[in-house]
């Protein structure tokens, strides 16, 4: 089964260009859904929606702060999915959260809640391959694409197994560490992209530590595109609103399209 997310990313890749997936914290500010629409209009191929969790161990200070603010403002899985349901975004959405929010009410229920809200995919960074099956089966049944992460620390024999189980795309973790903007692209970013590209035909996007158009272009020399998180969320925290985030995403889009067309 190839879902809406993978289809959108494959289409972009087949056109000779690169995929761009910005991450937006759900429930951060009253206008977050407007920001999602603005990012889509600015050329995003899909939008990652962060569903805030109390203990986000893969996230650095920027996304932690956004999480805390959204939770303090009363964001819940229900409120975020309620806003997404019926929101005409124009590109597929992927919810990124942590396993306990999916586990708490039951994997099947969570997966069907995502599907009901029109969400295409889901990323749970604290379930590794060994533990993924009960969730991934529930997601498959609901038609939700489970995107798996592949880390630079993985041995070679692990990567094909991750790629095989991943749906939508394969998320290459750009560095050994947590989310956040770094001054330079880590050497590991292109390395993981190359290792993944050599074992899969699925779209390979690299995120974590990709924080500028220059870094996005650099890693996309090897990958099929990028996920950008903290740089986007920082713009939201700074009050950039739909216009500010739209401009930011347009800047990444134009840098990628200038180099790859």
């Amino acid at each position, binding site marked *: 089964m190839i879902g809406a997310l993978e289809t959108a990313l494959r289409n972009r890749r087949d056109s000779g260009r690169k995929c761009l997936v910005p991450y937006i914290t759900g429930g951060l500010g009253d206008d977050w859904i407007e920001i999602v629409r603005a990012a889509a209009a600015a050329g995003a191929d899909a939008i990652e929606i962060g569903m805030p969790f109390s203990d986000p*161990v893969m996230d650095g200070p920027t996304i932690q702060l956004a999480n805390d603010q959204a939770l303090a403002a009363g964001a819940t*899985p229900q409120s975020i999915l309620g806003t997404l349901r019926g929101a005409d975004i124009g590109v597929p959405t992927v919810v990124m959260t942590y396993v306990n929010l999916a586990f708490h009410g039951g994997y099947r229920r969570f997966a069907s809640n995502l599907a009901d809200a029109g969400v295409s995919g889901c990323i749970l960074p604290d379930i590794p391959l060994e533990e993924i099956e009960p969730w991934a089966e529930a997601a498959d049944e609901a038609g939700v694409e489970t995107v798996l992460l592949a880390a630079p620390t993985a041995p070679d024999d692990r990567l094909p197994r991750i790629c095989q189980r991943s749906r939508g795309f394969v998320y290459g973790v750009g560095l050994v560490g947590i989310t956040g903007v770094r001054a330079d692209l880590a050497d590991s970013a292109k390395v993981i992209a190359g290792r993944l590209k050599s074992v899969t035909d699925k779209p390979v996007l690299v995120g974590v530590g990709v924080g500028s158009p220059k870094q996005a272009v650099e890693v996309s020399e090897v990958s099929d595109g990028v996920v950008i998180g903290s740089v986007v969320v920082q713009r939201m925290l700074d009050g950039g609103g739909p216009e500010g985030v739209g401009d930011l995403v347009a800047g990444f889009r134009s840098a990628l399209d200038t180099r790859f067309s």
Partner: protein
Amino acid sequence: MMNGPDEDGRFGEFGGTFVPETLVPACQELEGAFREAWADPEFRNDLDGLLADYAGRPSPVTVCSNLSAQIGVNVLLKREDLNHTGSHKINNVLGQALLAKRMGKTHLVAETGAGQHGVATATAAALFDMECIVYMGEVDISRQELNVFRMKLLGTEVRSAQSGSRTLKDAVNEAMRHWVSVVDSTHYCLGSAMGPHPYPWMVREFHRVIGTEAREQCLKLLDGRLPDVVTACVGGGSNAIGIFSGFSDTATELVGVEPAGGAAVGRGVPGIVHGSLSYLMQDEWGQVLEAESISAGLDYPGVGPEHSYLASTGRASYVAVTDAEVVEAFQLLSRTEGIIPALESAHAIAWVIRAREELAGKTVLVNLSGRGDKDVAQMMDILR
């Protein structure tokens, strides 16, 4: 009984390895290294030597004649408070540091609540000449000033965890984030029988010495009998799992005592955080709740997975005591026996006092997991 986990790191339905992909190879490497070291007589011999000559084991079992007379229950204490660094934590830390060294790691990172595990880790780092960073919640740093200074004195860098509740839960988050970033050089010296596989198993094995010694000591003291009940406080549950492991194949009743404001087992709702599936305090959406306890070491919303398993099978039971009961117990043990317990350990005493009618005439072994020196300033404020 208590041999598990299975090869997936499960105790029944509980446990597992819920970590980011980045950490999977490190957990697998650690599991292999521990399995191999634990079967190696030389490693066991080195560790036994350290436990004896450095930590001061075996720790004695003390018969509490005065307290027993007062409450009508025969109370015995397993004196983990007499270990070097003042608590049971040193057992696990010496084991993990020795293992980390054997694995070629040069750095240790740890979380701490009350500071007991942080001090023990800092101590092992000094002994083994390793670099050490300890994360501690900002709230705990202010209520455990002495232990913060101790860690610094031992050459460890103490970093403040300023997110969320700024207590033990957040210190674990920060330690895991740190570990994700430096996993090649660094061993995460996790302080309780919790976290991803192999930690719950490995930490229990390093604390099994408590139960093994206590069983033998009780048989001698009680003319070949075992205690009717063994009890211990439970935050993550390392001291409890250590002493329980010596009695799990007997008829002795096992009772874990949680703080009322951090009763993960008591609430009985499973969840996944910090690497494993276990009972977890959480709201209606699955957001992890903040625990509230007088004792920083038990101020944790989760519990080690094997405790969830023991509770679900009924082999151990879990009860909760209030801060007020703990304050009473702290004072009573101090006055009757001349032993000032850690606030954590005072939870187990508090349950014995509360349950004295049903325990009348029975023999109860309490794991006195730590000494109360670190809590004296806090108690001075409370009692003033």
